Structure formats: C-alpha cells, structure tokens
C-alpha cells in the first residue's frame, strides 16, 4: 500500500514538472519543463530541461524532414512558417512567427504522414572531452 502511494506521488510529481510539454525524438514523446527565458537584442531563447536532464534552448526555428517537398509547402501556409534554409536533401530549417509556437508546431508536423520527423532547432551545450 505504502509503495503504491509513493509511486502515485512520484507519478503526479512528474506530471506537474513536465506537464503536457513534450517534443518527439525517434517518434517517442520526451517531456520538457521550462527552465528560463533569455531575452537579448537579436535572439530570444527559452531554455527547457528534458526528462533526461539535458538543457535545451528553443527559439523560433525548427527542423523538419519531409518525404515530399510539395506537401511541406502546404504546411508552411497552415502553420505560418517560412523556409530559412535547406540543410540537406529533404531536410529544412523553418522559422515560426513566435518562439512560443515552435514546440507545438513541431509536434503537429511530426504527426503528419508526409513528415518523417520534426523538432525544434535545439540549442545544446557541446561538452569537450
């Protein structure tokens, strides 16, 4: 009984920490919790922590890999996106209207049949070894 109560408390705590914010990695949902907002003259980055404890910066950019560039154009209109650059074949860096929309739009794109994957253009720390 005690074990069950502890498990329930832990589960609720995790829900409270990560809430409904998530992104897709390898087609699986990964929880995110907001850490801090950094506003600068030309950049605007929100920092999150994912459920693995990794800090991720999110801006108004996201990355999408498409099966078909023609359908990508439809989604550009649907979500008010613009193409920043083509990163490689069928892989695009897109810009949203507002960084607060990035995660949600990336998730919705990820759920489209003609999109192989989509996620924010994460900013991460490269650790020298």
């Amino acid at each position, binding site marked *: 009984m005690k074990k069950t109560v502890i498990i329930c408390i832990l589960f609720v705590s995790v829900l409270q920490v990560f809430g409904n914010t998530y992104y897709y990695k390898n087609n699986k949902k990964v929880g995110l919790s907001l850490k801090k907002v950094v506003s600068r003259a030309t950049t605007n980055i929100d920092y999150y922590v994912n459920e693995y404890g990794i800090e991720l910066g999110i801006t108004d950019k996201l990355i999408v890999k498409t099966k078909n560039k023609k359908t990508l154009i439809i989604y550009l209109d649907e979500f008010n996106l613009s193409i920043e650059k083509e990163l490689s074949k069928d892989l695009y860096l897109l810009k949203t209207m507002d960084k607060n929309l990035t995660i949600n739009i990336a998730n919705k794109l990820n759920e489209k049949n003609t999109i192989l994957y989509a*996620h924010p253009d994460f900013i991460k720390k490269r650790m*020298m070894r």
Partner: protein
Amino acid sequence: MFYSQNAINENAHINVKNLLQTYTGEGVRVAIIDDGLDTQHEDLKGSIIHSYDVTTKTSDVSHSDSSGYHGTAVTGIIAARKNLKGIQGIASEVKVIFLKYKEKMSDSQTIELFNKAEEFGADIINCSWGTYDVSDAVKDKIVDLSINGRNGKGTIIVFASGNDDIDMGNDESAIPEVIAVGATDKDNLRAYYSNYGKFLDIVAPGGYYLGITTLDPIGEDGISSKDINYILYDDSNYFVGTSASAPIVSGVIALMLQENAALTRVEIENILHKTSDKVGNVMYLDERNDYYGYGKVNLTNIFLNKRYSFAPS
C-alpha cells in the same frame, strides 16, 4: 626507461614500433570539429587546407580567448608534423580541415559543420565532444555521411565516448555508425572516467596521472605551464580524456586509408575490431564488452601481422 620511471604498464601504448616512419597519412583528409585551432603553430605548418567557423562564417578558426586549447591539442595528436620541432602526430602528413563550433550551438549549426566536412572532402571526421542527447536531425546527417560519404564508401566519423563514467546513452558516440572511442590509462586498463555502453567500439590511451603530450597554442595562450607551445605529459594542466583517445584512433584510420584508400567505413571498423588487443579485466563475449568495446587499438596488428588483408573486397 620512461615507462619504468613513471610506473606505466609496458603495454600501455598502441604498439607503434617504427611504423610511423613508413605511414604518415599522406593523401588523407581529416576534419576536426572542435573549439578552435592555433593555425600558426610551428608544428602544423602546411597541414591546414580548409577551415570554417560556424559563428562568423569565415575561415578564421582561432580560439575565442587566450585560454582556449582543446582543438589545438586534439589536432596535434593527429597531425603534428614530422620535423625537427616538438612532436610527431600519428598521421603527420594528413591534410587538416578544421571546423570551429561554439559551445552552445544549434542542431542546424551542427549539421552545417558536417556539411562543410563533406564539402571539403573529409575522409575522417574527429569529434572529441558530445551532448548526451543527439537530435533526430543531427543523427540523420551523421548516419547519412557514414553510409554515403566518400562517394559511397562511407565517411569515418570518430567520437570520444565521454569522461563521466556513465553509459553513453543518447550521446552522439552511441550512434551505431560512428566509431566510439573510450580511454585506457597507464595500467593498460579502462580509465576510471571512460564512458561505456553497447555501442563502444574501441579504446585507446587517454591518460590518467600522466597526460598525452600534444600541441598548445603558441606563446602565452593556452593552458601549458611547462612549455609555451606544447602541453607536456607531466604538465600540471595535462591533456587527458577520451578527447585524446579519439584522435589517436582517427590518426590510425588515416594511416589505414593511406595504405588503401578504397577501404569502406565498414571494412575499417572490421579491421579495427579484429586487430584490437583484448585488454582489461572484463570478459569479452563475441569479441567485445561494453567497457573496452572490441579492445585497445594496436597499430602493429593492423599493419604487420597481416591477419587482415588491405586488398579491396
């Protein structure tokens, strides 16, 4: 005498013998993605063919501040020239492509650097860094290069496994198509800090108690406290870690490609796996374990024992 004076296991090396008099990596291009490079270093003269900074979009890859050293140290292990100065790298005649990252970098910038390595014709890409959480897009690019780069033979991408004594997990080094390198120490055992996991390929000396002698930015810049242009093995700021192990393996691969440029990435991996020394006190099952991979790289086994042909398959 050096080994006995410093209580180093007599086998705690990669068994070079005199092979570096014959093999130099001539004709091979190695890209290094790291924090900066002292392109004016006396021991790199003539080695650099391309450079690119992802922040400034220019060819200036100098360290961002006077304390920067890491990329210079990594490059020195691979490519320090065979001359009358300083040290000699594992592959002293390779051509260097240096790609400067920034500490907090976006996925799209990371992909840009791998694109640049491809554009500049890199045969090998050394990455002595990691994030512990590779994104789908970055992984996709790395896998694509590993399979399709070098006109279909596969670009060889080498990652340091990390220094936190943890499982490699979601790190870049855990991508199956890269060569993940852990570190051994002076006792010819896994260095206590060296990350491990089911995708660890191989280990190489990384240091502990003593470091790896390599280049430091010239003059007062860098971290060396004993020599102004080199980080000596016994400097109090010695260069230690899987960051040192990875470029040793990158240099060895450059020598293999000098011998046979037609080797595919898979063939190179197989040769490394089959010629490595099964060191350590962990059982090897099907030739490997999670702490040493397939074992410690052995240059003599690769080139002189002729167990594995270098002829194209």
